[in-house]
């Protein structure tokens, strides 16, 4: 059982004069899948980035806690896994080279067996030594799942997780999410009905304008 919790406290964000959302309050204390939904431009990706700690809100704060202790901002990245269409891996390196580089920069061990399992789960094992530049967009999306899961994060943030994926890829994602959410928190930002069906609760951003 994971003792990770997340508290969104009075978060507001605007870009210039344009208000994206305001006064979002939400907390997740147990292992579950939570959805974020809203029309295009409603701020789904913005909220996901704020939760990941890569974008600062204009007001409010996000509190990430592990075993009831607040996680410092500069340590947060090791607790979070992130997948999105706008996340880009190093295209001049192969998939394995990318993952080894990430392990070293994170300061964690490269778990060969676990990563082999992830490669097999995402059907990328045979292409693991190919340069990422030669991958299709669907393969790149699947590789991002390995990137997000390789350090066994407590919080998995998925922004449009099934974009660019075929039906087989989508099934693979749903299987990963179902399995991973048993012991961890998963947040999915999407408008896809099938993606949102996995969620036990959904945050509708239209309610925070």
């Amino acid at each position, binding site marked *: 059982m994971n003792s990770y919790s997340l508290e969104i406290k009075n978060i507001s964000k605007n870009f210039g004069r344009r208000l994206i959302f305001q006064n979002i309050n939400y907390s997740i204390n147990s292992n579950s899948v939570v959805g974020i939904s809203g029309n295009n431009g409603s701020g789904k990706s913005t909220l996901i980035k704020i939760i990941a700690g*890569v974008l600062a809100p204009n007001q409010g704060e996000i509190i990430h806690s592990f075993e009831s202790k607040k996680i410092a901002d500069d340590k947060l990245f090791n607790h979070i896994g992130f997948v999105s269409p706008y996340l880009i891996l190093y295209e001049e390196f192969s998939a394995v080279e990318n993952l080894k580089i990430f392990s*070293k920069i994170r300061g964690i061990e490269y778990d060969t067996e676990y990563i082999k399992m992830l490669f097999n789960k995402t059907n990328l094992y045979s292409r693991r030594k190919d340069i990422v530049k030669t991958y299709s967009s669907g393969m790149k999306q699947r590789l991002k799942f390995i*990137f997000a899961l390789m350090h066994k994060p407590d919080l998995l943030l998925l922004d449009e997780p099934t974009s660019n994926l075929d039906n087989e890829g989508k099934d693979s994602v749903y299987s990963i999410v179902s399995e991973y959410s048993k012991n961890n928190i998963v947040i999915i930002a999407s408008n896809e009905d099938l993606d949102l069906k996995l969620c036990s609760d959904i945050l509708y951003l239209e309610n925070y304008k």
Partner: protein
Amino acid sequence: MITKSYSLFVKDVKSELRTRYAINSLVMFILVAISAILFSIGNEKIQPELAAGLYWVVIFFSAMSGLSRAFVSEEEKGTTLTLQLIASPDTVFTGKLLFNLILTFLINIIVTFIYAAFFEGFVINNFVLFIITFIFGNIGLAISSTIIASIIAKSGSKGTLYPVLSFPILLPLILTCVQLNIFSIDGTSFDNVLYELAIVVSYDIIMITVSYLLFDYIWKE
């Protein structure tokens, strides 16, 4: 943190060797700049003041043409978010600074050798002073270039903004280094150059402190 930063540095070196983002532009700039100066002075022997000034002009503009790549290449490739998700701001800044330090020193050692070989007026009489100036000058140049690169990487007009922002920040360093180079060509003793040396060392300390304090805010959107 040092091991993680070193891993980021190694990644940047491997990436640079595969993509040649910075090296090609730096080498071409040095060749073009030194050739242009050589053609313009012809057979004339230039004054030490001019030799020292031109030397730092080449160093300044070669830094302008290559050192911004550390952050700009991440932004152009779209990998900034990836880096934000795998490392703390301090790790990123240290790794990028290490890359720029090595690049600055390598490039400027080459510039110095080419310069010494082709310019008659560039005869060093206080070699220790020259080396100290070279070391602290290049450290200051690398620190300033790295933090400025992180600021301009997110802007639309990176190419224009980089020299514009760098000029006022690097001017005190460049002017002092030019003066120290004149002293090293003249063979001035250390007792008479302590003031200028203190300026360069202080500049480096101030820039590294300010950079680490500010980078967290620059790095997070």
